[in-house]
């Protein structure tokens, strides 16, 4: 028994609710003592059933024991507890690859690579899977078709500056998002100069989903605009003129509300025109 294993065993005996079972289980797994590792982690999970790293460890022990279905189930639990967990995605990608489910493997590994771009092993596994697929990675249709922010689009105009002529100067900004909350046009520049349009768009597009759901029950017909005031800004949104997307306008907190509503109307007209030109 190594010193570490002995030390962690003692610590766990003193405090059975300690998370040290994770270190102990991992050490035992690495030593090939999978039955003992399994016992340790299962006992830990009895006390900490919502602890994602414990389910992750259980999944890796299961792989070592050849219990692939169990491993998949455990990583699935990890993702429910911690949706961005790159380790679980990596593991599920590995299992799918082992089982010849290449498209699924590619999907999991892509997500893992997004979550942990620095992990060379994920990048290499992803490249391997893509080689096996014999084709370039699948790009969702909307991304492939969409004019990307920063890229020249309809009529040769930069998609980021489509609304520049409408919103004028000052602290005002406008975005056109597609049905998945991805930016089609416009920009949102943070005080530090970064374009945070994707982040802001992704966060705020959920509000329109919520409105849509509410409208199905409130017998008020379709929604035409949502305006909300925050500590820092006034945000107005409306359904995009075409294609199920969303228009978003943000202005400084002290901007008159009526002006923001008019701005939203003008941005909507501009978006319609731009989408028609690009179609």
């Amino acid at each position, binding site marked *: 028994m190594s010193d570490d294993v002995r030390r962690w065993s003692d610590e766990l005996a003193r405090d059975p609710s300690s998370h040290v079972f994770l270190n102990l289980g991992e050490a035992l797994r690495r030593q090939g003592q999978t039955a003992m590792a399994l016992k340790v982690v299962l006992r830990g999970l009895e006390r900490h059933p919502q602890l994602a790293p414990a389910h992750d460890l259980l999944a890796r022990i299961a792989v070592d024991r050849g219990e692939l279905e169990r491993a998949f189930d455990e990583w699935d639990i990890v993702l429910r507890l911690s949706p961005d967990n790159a380790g679980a995605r990596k593991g599920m990608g590995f299992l799918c690859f082992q089982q010849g489910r290449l498209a699924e493997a590619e999907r999991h590994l892509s997500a893992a690579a997004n979550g942990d771009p620095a992990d060379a092993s994920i990048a290499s596994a992803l490249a391997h899977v893509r080689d096996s697929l014999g084709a370039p990675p699948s790009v969702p249709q909307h991304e492939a078709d969409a004019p990307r922010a920063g890229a020249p689009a309809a009529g040769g105009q930069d998609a980021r500056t489509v609304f520049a002529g409408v919103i004028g100067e000052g602290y005002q900004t406008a975005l056109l998002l597609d049905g998945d909350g991805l930016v089609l046009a416009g920009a949102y520049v*943070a005080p530090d100069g970064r374009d*945070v349009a994707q*982040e*802001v768009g992704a*966060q*705020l597009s*959920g*509000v329109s989903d*919520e*409105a849509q*759901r*509410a*409208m199905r*029950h*409130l*017998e*008020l*017909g*379709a*929604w*035409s*605009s*949502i*305006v*909300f*005031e*925050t*500590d*820092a*800004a006034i*945000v107005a949104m409306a359904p995009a003129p075409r294609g199920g997307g969303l228009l978003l306008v*943000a202005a400084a907190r002290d901007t008159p*509300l009526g002006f923001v509503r008019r701005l939203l109307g003008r941005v909507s007209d501009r978006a319609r025109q731009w989408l028609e030109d690009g179609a």
Partner: protein
Amino acid sequence: MSSRSPFSEMLATLIRQRGVVGSMVVSESDGIVVDSNLQIGVKGTVVAALAASLYRKARLSASAAGLGEATFLQLEAERGRVFAIGRNDLVMVTVAETRANIGLIRVAMLRALEDGGLG
């Protein structure tokens, strides 16, 4: 709800506004009506659940997008309007017809909040 609550007077003030068909205080996290003053035909429990959820989503999304805490929200639809303002896990919700005066309702709700209407 017939018995008087700390919110009754505030809700009565709001329902007197032109075009307002219902006003209520809702628990933001549960989407359950705390008190309400509704015209006949307004489904209080449905409005409460959905409006609280919409308000919460806007509040959390605005915060996540770095825009600070959402205070006042208004939604316009073909046949009506919904207004919401919140504090302390309570949301004041007003439902109105399209003929309602947005400015007056907004001011009335902001004033009610300032006066400690939601604690």
